[in-house]
């Protein structure tokens, strides 16, 4: 009887230990994703999550990294709030198995979060964070796969006034790190033309994000009679702005920054008002010519029915890919090794959004911009 009991205990212990032993060799490599899963940018967060899942799935289908280990994405929600962003980052760095993090949409969320990652020495790659100053802080572990606002501002100054034959330009931002940054950068890029007197900046002001009623600033905008109106903010406000502006009789063309227009914008504003709205943007997923992009988008479409309607989720996928690539090439999950490798040895690695390489500051090298427009059917296409 006693022997039976002992056997039972040994058996139980073995049962508990066995699976551990079996999986220890193939323990997945965990990469964090911090994104706005809830809150005002939930749509972007959802797409980023799906993109990272697809990216991981594609890596795993090809046999994983480090000789057969799978890649696992661990999502934390930052709700699109700076405060929650810092908490989310703390949560990720607190988990020992998280190697590095794809961190977030929204420059003002990234700013406090990247401080935490820096402090706890975790590589973090921003995917929808374009404010110039993020890479001016001499951070060792922060990178980004997306472009910078100053290149977008320059693109606006070079192309938009000519296209519309506009003399009187209005710029409206939303006081966030991204919106204000892009507005300032655009103003800076317009400066030679302003000095030469070929264009006039007749309106430069902010709206409050999260508000629903913009009748007051829009009435002021209408009284200034702009030829073109540039809004550097996010799609939730952009949709309300366009709806209310047309309601009170602002008729000039609307040009949004690269966060202003996606399918959600078209849905909220309605096709009637959304059509003919422009945006300056990185190339959208559907317009990417690369082999990796085609493969990724096919897998995405097979699983979720439609491809992402904004460029950011793709940058998130590329951030995940490049982390996995670096881990695989260096054979290490050590943050210092990874950061060194990303900074110095990643150059022209084929990615979904084109060849990936980082500058000494951690910026992505070479991101092109296009002018997009919403067409009759509510699709976002390159403006001719």
């Amino acid at each position, binding site marked *: 009887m006693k022997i039976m009991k002992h056997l039972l205990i040994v058996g139980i212990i073995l049962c508990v230990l066995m699976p551990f032993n079996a999986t220890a060799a193939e323990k997945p490599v965990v990469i964090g994703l911090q994104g706005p899963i809830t809150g005002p940018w939930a749509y972007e967060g959802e797409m980023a999550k799906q993109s990272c899942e697809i990216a991981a799935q594609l890596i795993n289908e090809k046999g994983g990294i480090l000789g057969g280990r799978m890649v696992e994405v661990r999502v934390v929600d930052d709700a699109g709030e700076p405060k929650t962003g810092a908490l989310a980052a703390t949560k990720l760095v607190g988990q020992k198995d998280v190697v590095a993090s794809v961190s977030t949409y929204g420059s003002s969320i990234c700013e406090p979060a990247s401080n935490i990652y820096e402090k706890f020495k975790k590589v973090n790659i921003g995917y929808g964070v374009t404010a110039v100053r993020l890479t001016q802080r001499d951070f060792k572990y922060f990178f980004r796969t997306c472009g910078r606002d100053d290149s977008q501002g320059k693109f606006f100054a070079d192309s938009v006034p000519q296209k519309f034959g506009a003399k009187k330009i209005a710029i409206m931002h939303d006081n966030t790190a991204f919106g204000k940054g892009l507005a300032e950068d655009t103003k800076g890029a317009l400066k030679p033309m302003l000095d030469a007197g070929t264009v006039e900046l007749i309106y430069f002001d902010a709206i409050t994000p999260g508000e629903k009623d913009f009748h007051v600033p829009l009435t002021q905008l209408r009284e200034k009679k702009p030829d073109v109106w540039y809004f550097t903010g996010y799609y939730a406000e952009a949709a309300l702005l366009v709806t209310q502006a047309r309601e*009170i009789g602002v008729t000039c063309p609307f040009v949004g920054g690269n966060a202003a227009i996606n399918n959600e914008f078209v849905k909220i504003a309605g096709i009637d008002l959304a059509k003919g709205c422009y945006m300056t943007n990185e190339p959208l997923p559907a317009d990417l010519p690369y082999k990796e992009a085609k493969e990724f988008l096919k897998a995405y479409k097979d699983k979720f029915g439609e491809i992402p309607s904004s460029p950011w989720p793709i940058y998130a996928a590329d951030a995940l890919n490049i982390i996995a690539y670096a881990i695989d090439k260096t054979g290490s999950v050590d943050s210092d090794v990874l950061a060194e490798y990303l900074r110095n040895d990643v150059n022209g690695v084929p990615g979904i959004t084109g060849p990936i390489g980082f500058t000494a500051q951690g910026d992505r090298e070479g991101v092109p911009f296009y002018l997009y427009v919403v067409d009759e059917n509510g699709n976002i296409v390159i403006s001719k």
Partner: protein
Amino acid sequence: MQVVFEQIINGLTIGSFYALIALGYSMVYGVLKLINFAHGDFFTLGSYLGYTLLVFGSAFITTHFGLWGGMVAAMLMAAMCLAFIGVLVERAAYRPIYPAGRLPAVVSALGASIVLQNAIMVIWGPRYQAYPAKLIPNIHLNIWGINITVLQIVILVLSFVLMGILYYIIQKTVFGAAIRATALDKDTASLMGINFNKVIFFIFTLGPALGAMTGVMVGMYYRQISFTMGWNYGLKAFTATILGGIGNLPGAMFGGLILGVLEMLGAAYISAAWKDVFVFMILILVLIFRPNGLFGEKIAEKV
């Protein structure tokens, strides 16, 4: 000059939203001396229910009732659902802890608010929802150079009708008399044969129903709703309640309208970024000089 009038009309429109929500706060406070933090979420829930009815029932509703009939039908259905939910929340979250005093009830109200907000997020998802675009005709009118939409006129008229009906119910009917009596002195009112629980039932159907109708109107006006919007509107409406004198129904109505207009004018002529500061400055000034609000009656000291 036209611009000033335009801003005032814009202000009256959001002011009437604040006023309708404020009425719900004020009624509950008047009777129970409880700040019902869940009220803002009743409003959000109403907005979402109206959205669901309009999106999924739009073909049916508009063919059977016509365009504006469909809107009113959606509004009424949302109101009825919310009246039911309001009573449910009162039974579950407030009634069991009345004997414990006022402070636990306030905490419970905050809890109810969080539960409702998260329930909305789980059911409809965290994304913004958009009221159907084609359903609401976007007709502009130009009256003496003032730009106004038909929808704004409809909202203003509807709000004033609703406020009128509520005022009539409270001031002229037996129910209203019972509510006013309970608000004045709960114990004496009970001694006079007024059923306290019936009064509570009544205010918890009326308040959320009004909130729900406001929610549908806000949805039609801005076309974009989110599960967290109740907090912001709730806070503003609560401010309106205090501005007008808490527990005083005409006070809540005027408080809301005044708040809306002040907010718009402050944003237009001082600074859009400072408009909330401006609004709360006014509130503080009013409270310094008239601690019971603009229309508040002096409460006699109980000896």
